[in-house]
């Protein structure tokens, strides 16, 4: 089908108002479920076509690029689309019971509607080939995620959402300036065309100051969005206080999409050669390493486990940007692969958090006492997710860590290798704190009330994620294929 790319965005976008029209929480959930599954199907078809016959291009309204907006899918964004739709297709069945408990019944149709808008925004960013369109979709997804985070059960969700709104808007405005400056340089908004103009007019090696400014703005703006250390301040609060489903969804998709944007702008527009004296790699390297070490250390001292995992996310984003900063083929493949694997493991870990908060009511470390016995399936899933996070073989995390370390050795960056491994060891510490409490700390005598296992509708998506984590640790031919194709593409220019 030739209309697949537009279907990818339009399905969730059209389903969103339907949720409100029906104004019934069950129907709204069902509509959202169908929409996400349909999007997942579409992204599978797109991925298949891209792998078979190369990049797809779709002109919106029949206006050819660079005049009109075109949707352009190559192996990089086909992969991102798969991640985003795949996670949401698993998060939606999970949402039913979890949302029922956490959100006021009257707001639930709005909740699903916003979730779909957010999904549409993320998919739009990933699929469009137009820089301004990207900005619009970015704001679409951000605005809906501010509202979604604000729906969290605790009142601190509101302040967290506000904080995110302020920082997110500043980031988006920076991106807007950057795009404007690029437009004033090239007279084009189409990413491929911008790249062509820059190269054809020899703007890139000439030390053009507008280009430098544009990239400075875009890089800083996107770093805010993807929570690159030290611009990560919004993330721990937002992830901690958001509703469980939103944490699962945002942690495994939103930051990945922002990283995708960074990859797109940096590699597809200017190519891998240095803009001026500095390459992107040199700029991103230090924050990435700092993220890996500092956030992991901070995570060790958290007592709210959701918050601990949020800090761990910042560290994991550090791994991804570290791979990106290596600017060679193996580093980029590792980064792109880790986008996928991190989505798998963080999605899984936050799903277990959702289940614990469903059964126990909160996720403080002390609430985990004795849970190994009371919620064996949930804690089992937590252990698998934790192992994946540590990078134990036969889990997805191992494959990306292997590739990352290998890329660092290839460059002879032994100090970086050591830091990566220290990061893994820190992950062992903070994950094991929870495991130890769950299995080896007996329940207090006071806590006699019955805490049982989470309902099946939470457990099934969770265990599907477990299976995915293990499957892609044993056979990751497909994601690796995607990641390597995408890396080749990024390094080869457009």
């Amino acid at each position, binding site marked *: 089908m030739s209309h697949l790319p537009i279907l990818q965005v339009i399905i969730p976008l059209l389903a969103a108002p339907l949720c409100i029209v029906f104004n019934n929480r069950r129907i709204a959930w069902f509509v959202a479920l169908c929409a996400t599954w349909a999007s997942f199907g579409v992204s599978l078809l797109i991925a298949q076509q891209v792998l078979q016959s190369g990049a797809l291009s779709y002109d919106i309204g029949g206006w050819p690029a660079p005049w009109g907006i075109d949707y352009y899918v190559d192996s990089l964004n086909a992969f991102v689309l798969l991640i985003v739709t795949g996670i949401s297709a698993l998060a939606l069945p999970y949402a039913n019971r979890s949302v029922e408990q956490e959100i006021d019944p009257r707001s639930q149709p709005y909740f699903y509607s916003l979730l779909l808008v957010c999904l549409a925004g993320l998919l739009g960013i990933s699929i469009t080939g137009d820089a*301004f369109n990207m900005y619009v979709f970015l*704001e679409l997804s951000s*605005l809906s995620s*501010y*509202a979604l985070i604000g729906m969290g059960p605790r*009142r601190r969700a509101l302040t967290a959402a506000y904080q995110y709104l302020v920082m997110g*808007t500043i980031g988006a405005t920076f991106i807007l300036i950057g795009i*404007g400056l690029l437009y004033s340089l090239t007279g084009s908004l189409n990413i491929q065309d911008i790249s062509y103009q820059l190269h054809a007019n020899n703007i890139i090696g000439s030390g053009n100051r507008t280009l430098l400014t544009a990239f400075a703005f875009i890089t800083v703006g996107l770093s805010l969005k993807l929570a690159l250390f030290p611009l990560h301040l919004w993330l721990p609060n937002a992830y901690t206080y958001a509703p469980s489903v939103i944490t699962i969804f945002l942690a495994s998709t939103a930051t990945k999409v922002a990283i995708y944007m960074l990859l797109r702008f940096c590699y597809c527009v200017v190519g891998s050669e240095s803009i001026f004296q500095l390459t992107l790699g040199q700029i991103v390297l230090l924050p990435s390493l700092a993220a890996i070490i500092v956030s992991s250390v901070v995570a060790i001292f958290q007592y709210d486990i959701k918050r601990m995992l949020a800090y761990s996310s910042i560290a994991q984003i550090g791994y991804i940007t570290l791979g990106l900063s290596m600017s060679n083929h193996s580093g980029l493949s590792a980064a792109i692969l880790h986008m996928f694997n991190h989505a798998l493991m963080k999605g899984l870990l936050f799903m277990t958090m959702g289940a614990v908060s469903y059964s126990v009511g909160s996720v403080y470390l002390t609430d985990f006492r004795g849970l190994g016995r009371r919620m064996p399936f949930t804690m089992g899933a937590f252990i698998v997710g934790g192992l994946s996070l540590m990078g134990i073989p036969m889990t997805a995390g191992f494959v990306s860590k292997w590739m990352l370390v290998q890329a660092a050795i290839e460059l002879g960056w032994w100090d970086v290798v050591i830091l990566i491994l220290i990061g893994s060891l820190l992950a062992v510490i903070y994950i094991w704190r929870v495991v130890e409490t769950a299995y080896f700390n007996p329940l207090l005598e006071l806590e006699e009330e019955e805490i049982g296992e989470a309902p099946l509708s939470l457990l099934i998506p969770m265990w599907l994620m477990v299976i995915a984590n293990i499957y892609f640790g044993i056979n990751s031919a497909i994601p690796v294929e995607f990641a390597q194709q995408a890396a080749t593409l990024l390094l080869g220019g457009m």
Partner: protein
Amino acid sequence: MSWVGHYNYWVAIFLMMSGFYVVISRGNLIKKLIGLNVFSTSVFLLYISMGKIFGGTAPIINEHSQKFQLFSNPIPHVLILTAIVVGVATTAVGLALTVRINERYGTIEEDEIRAKDDSL
């Protein structure tokens, strides 16, 4: 000379920094939002001034268009129309959040909110 010629940039930078300053320094959530608006408006001005050409006219092709040589680029203006809508929506969400914060905390001063959270 050249930096007088770029006065539109100076205006944008001035507005941007004052907006940014307000966002950082004010504790009142409404004032922060106002600052945020000033901040993003500066970018709108930047875009609009970019598209302006002195003596240029609207690029409409009809029987009179033969008379004009110089046209303004409409695209930045159109883009900024979208960005303004986005800005309005952001402000709306921000204000809605502020209202809810006021309901739950009884204040919209940042330090008081923090004190209430910490006392829990």
